[in-house]
């Protein structure tokens, strides 16, 4: 991505104060009126003070001095600059330090968190640039336009096209913490409550018509259920009361009213069935879409995201929480809508029959609404907590079950059981707390409705006594409010379901809102024919607050085989991960055939990469499917050819079902070497231009390694290959060895060159050999390799 960096390169002639971020202008304006025509070249915002307390500060560079403004009333400090002034930047444990020094010693020092690192780096570059200009005789300390543009070249690689100020924060958060803070809609996050549920509309939109039909059905069926109480009124007033007063019952009239009641019930039944079925159908589809979308999105996220999440948690989110939303949509939301309609319609009918009585009937309503509001907040927090704890419970399972061999080997079953019991106990405690609120809530609502009923009886009897209403009207009222209050009751119950679903929706949308830290290019460049030249330019990579790669530069010619050598933690695997674009570099770029890999479509790019890992992963399925994983359309002949080249053909034929044998989880047991050869066949089948062997032979014995090595030799032919190995002897075929140490390339050359140079490689090699001499027994060469591998772990 090439963007025009804005940096903090300001036109030198502009008045200084106007160019600071808004919130600083006033502060500076008040504090330093005498510094008025400051000619600011650039600035950086800091967030810590000298004692590492959080306190904002502003560092500004003028043509003659560095100014520092601290937030909160202190005098600005200025440090005049001389020809020997220089800025030194360092960081440790998440805190950066910028020091202004000259030849006599330190002049000043500032601290900041890594969130500010990129901004400070730019500031330091700007300073450097200014100093160069100063040291030139014709310059008078002021950078000319051309010079000011020069740092742009480096700036361009930092990839954020943002105006200075506000945006720096987001960009920096990305570089420093990866995806940790990359939630898009921070505003929506604040309102975690039921509003999140409205976002499901995005998934409901395709089913608009069916939803509308469902709503109309709901309306109709609710209306139908309201007919029977209405019919009790004439039944009472025209049949029963007159009968008590001596008028005989008219069977025709009774039959009419009763058949009306039956018809209403039947209509309500059929409409209710249609509505429930239709809406359940729709909600099931919405739930399925939601689940698929969440999983699809999850798969696109970078490895960094998966590194920071626990499997159990992700499984719980995509599995059970989508299901909960589903149930909410299909059952509870439907009930809620019905309840709401029922209440509105009932209220309307009641008012139309007798406004006074209706008013009394509706009295407990505000009380219930208030109760709901009171309880809602507590419930929501409770449910969110419960979800997190539930994820914790599943995480314990997801951690332990794959590692069961380790658990058993160290006899830690008891401890794991204890860990599970604790998580479970947490779950119980949280539930208990919630149930305390909940158990009080629902009876309270019931009590309110009972009292309401009592009031209606009392008021009704008084009204009947005064002759204001008939007994029939009172009966109808009582029938209505019986329904009314049950509805109110069930509506209050939905509070818990809504909050549960809202909590679930929030956790789903957390995944959906997450932006991959390896974004797809907006206008991808096409690269149909890849030659396989790799250029790594000034690459920095930071994992959390740890710098893993620092200014690494490496050129690899097409078809060349490179062996990456170095101690654990020297950045070998990180470099390979960057080349695969599992991560993006914090700074610098990686180009393939001269194109920045960030401007290629990820899937297109990865199609050209074959990866063979230390622990080959086989998916559940047949061997043929596993070999054809990268190219499912491959023919059987191609699969067999790839397996032959990977020296896997014969052992596959010896399996009970040949290429149709099932492997992977719960499948046929295969040895490490056999699995590795299948994964090599997999890489061979996609015929990649770039091949990455990450400790491909480390987990097997030397005899198997030879077998694998032969397979690898077939694979390496004519491809750009990057091989990582602890056993230096396995890299003997490499054209060039690259020795890494603490994120930098320290040596490059062939084995013989490097041995002659007697540097880092020589030391590594000697160390491996020495170990072999200590253990004289057995095949010396094997011992070297095995022990060296062991030692460097």
């Amino acid at each position, binding site marked *: 991505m090439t963007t025009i960096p804005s940096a903090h390169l300001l036109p030198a002639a502009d008045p200084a104060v106007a160019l600071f971020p808004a919130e600083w202008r006033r502060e500076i304006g008040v504090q330093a009126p005498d510094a008025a025509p400051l000619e600011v070249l650039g600035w950086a915002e800091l967030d810590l003070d000298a004692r590492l307390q959080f306190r904002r500060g502003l560092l500004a560079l003028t043509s003659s001095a560095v100014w520092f403004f601290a937030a909160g009333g202190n005098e600005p400090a200025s440090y005049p600059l001389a020809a020997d002034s220089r800025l030194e930047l360092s960081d440790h444990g998440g805190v950066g330090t910028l020091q202004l020094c000259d030849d006599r010693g330190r002049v000043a020092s500032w601290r900041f968190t890594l969130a500010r690192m990129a901004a400070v780096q730019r500031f330091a570059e700007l300073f450097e640039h200014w100093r160069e200009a100063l040291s030139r005789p014709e310059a008078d300390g002021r950078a000319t336009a051309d010079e000011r543009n020069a740092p742009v070249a480096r700036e361009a690689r930092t990839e954020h096209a943002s105006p200075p100020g506000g945006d720096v924060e987001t960009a920096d958060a990305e570089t420093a913490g990866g995806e940790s803070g990359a939630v898009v809609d921070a505003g929506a996050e604040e309102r975690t409550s039921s509003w999140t549920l409205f976002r499901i509309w995005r998934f409901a939109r395709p089913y608009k018509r069916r939803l509308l039909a469902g709503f109309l059905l709901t309306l109709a069926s609710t209306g139908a259920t309201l007919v029977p109480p209405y019919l009790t009124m004439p039944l009472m007033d025209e049949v029963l009361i007159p009968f008590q007063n001596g008028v005989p019952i008219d069977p025709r009239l009774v039959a009419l009213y009763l058949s009306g009641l039956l018809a209403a019930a039947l209509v309500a039944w059929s409409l209710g069935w249609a509505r429930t079925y239709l809406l359940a159908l729709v909600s099931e589809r919405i739930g399925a879409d939601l689940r698929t979308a969440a999983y699809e999105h999850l798969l696109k996220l970078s490895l960094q995201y998966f590194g920071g999440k626990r499997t159990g948690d992700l499984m719980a989110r995509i599995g059970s929480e989508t299901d909960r939303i589903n149930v909410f949509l299909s059952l509870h939301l439907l009930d809620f809508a019905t309840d709401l309609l029922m209440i509105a319609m009932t209220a309307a009918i009641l008012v139309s029959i007798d406004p006074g009585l209706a008013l009394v009937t509706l009295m407990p309503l505000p009380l219930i609404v208030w109760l709901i509001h009171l309880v809602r907040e507590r419930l929501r927090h409770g449910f969110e907590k419960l979800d997190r704890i539930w994820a914790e419970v599943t995480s314990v399972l997801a951690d332990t079950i794959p590692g069961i061999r380790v658990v058993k080997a160290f006899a830690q079953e008891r401890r794991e059981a204890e860990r599970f019991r604790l998580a479970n106990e947490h779950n119980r405690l949280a539930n208990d707390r919630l149930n305390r609120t909940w158990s009080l809530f629902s009876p309270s609502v019931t009590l309110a409705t009972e009292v309401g009923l009592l009031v209606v009886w009392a008021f009704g009897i008084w009204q009947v006594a005064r002759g204001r209403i008939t007994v029939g009207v009172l009966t109808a009222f009582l029938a209505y409010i019986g329904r009314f209050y049950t509805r109110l009751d069930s509506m209050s119950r939905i509070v818990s379901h809504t909050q549960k679903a809202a909590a679930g929706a929030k956790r789903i949308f957390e995944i959906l809102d997450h932006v991959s830290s390896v974004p797809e290019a907006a206008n991808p460049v096409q690269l149909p024919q890849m030659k396989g030249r790799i250029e790594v330019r000034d690459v920095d990579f930071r994992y959390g607050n740890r710098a893993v790669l620092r200014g690494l530069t490496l050129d690899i010619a097409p078809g060349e085989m490179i062996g990456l050598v170095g101690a654990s933690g020297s950045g070998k695997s990180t470099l390979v991960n960057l080349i695969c674009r599992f991560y993006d570099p914090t700074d610098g770029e990686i180009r393939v055939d001269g194109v920045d890999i960030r401007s290629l479509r990820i899937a297109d790019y990865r199609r050209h990469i074959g990866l063979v890992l230390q622990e080959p992963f086989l998916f559940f399925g*047949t061997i*043929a499917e596993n070999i054809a994983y990268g190219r499912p359309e491959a023919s*059987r*002949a191609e699969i*067999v050819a790839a397996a*032959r080249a990977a*020296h896997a*053909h*014969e052992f596959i*034929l*010896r399996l*009970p*079902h*040949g*290429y*149709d044998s*099932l492997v992977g989880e*719960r499948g046929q047991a295969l040895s490490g070497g056999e699995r590795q050869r299948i994964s090599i066949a997999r890489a061979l089948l996609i015929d990649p231009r770039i091949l990455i062997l990450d400790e491909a032979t480390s987990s097997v014995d030397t*005899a198997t390694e*030879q*077998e694998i090595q*032969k397979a690898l030799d077939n694979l390496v032919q004519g491809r750009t290959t990057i091989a990582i190995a602890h056993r230096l002897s396995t890299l003997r075929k490499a054209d060039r060895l690259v020795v890494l140490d603490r994120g930098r390339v320290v040596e490059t050359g062939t084995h013989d060159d490097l041995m002659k140079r007697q540097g880092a490689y020589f030391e590594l090699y000697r160390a491996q050999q020495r170990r072999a001499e200590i253990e004289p027994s057995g095949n010396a060469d094997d011992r070297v390799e095995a022990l060296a591998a062991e030692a460097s772990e």
Partner: protein
Amino acid sequence: MNAPTASARNEGNTVSAGVAPFSLSRDAFGRLVLREADGSICAGVVPVRGFPISAPDESVSLLGPDGRERVWIERLSSLDDTPRVLIEEELAAREFVPQIREIHSVSSFFTPCMWHVVTDRGETHFVLRGEEAIRRLSRNMLLIADENGVHYLVRDVEALDAASRKLLDRFM
């Protein structure tokens, strides 16, 4: 493992069509004897299908007694009658993947349970140890492993009768 011969063998005979550069015969012990084009003779070769389930009629490999591949036959049907019949006989004698035609009864819906089935090789009983012993190979194809490692194939679930499907459904 002796590596060099393996790689030499790997690039060895591949039969894709028509003429077979080898001949097969059966010796007095009932073993298959392979005579390759270069005149070498190998007794006791074993035919193995490459894709016994997904494409049983396509590829067959002849393995020597040492487990090394001698001949790879892309299509069995491309061979002359004599070797083909010999190979088919040998395969028929070695392969045992009964295909389930009908599920008569199941002793219980909890595993382990006894299944009474009708296969292409006759009626039989077997014990299903767990639900995970039923594996879906493709949309309609199932492989059921019994307690003793015998695999029963259901080639097409849809082709079973309704009663069998209903029983099977309880385990899926």
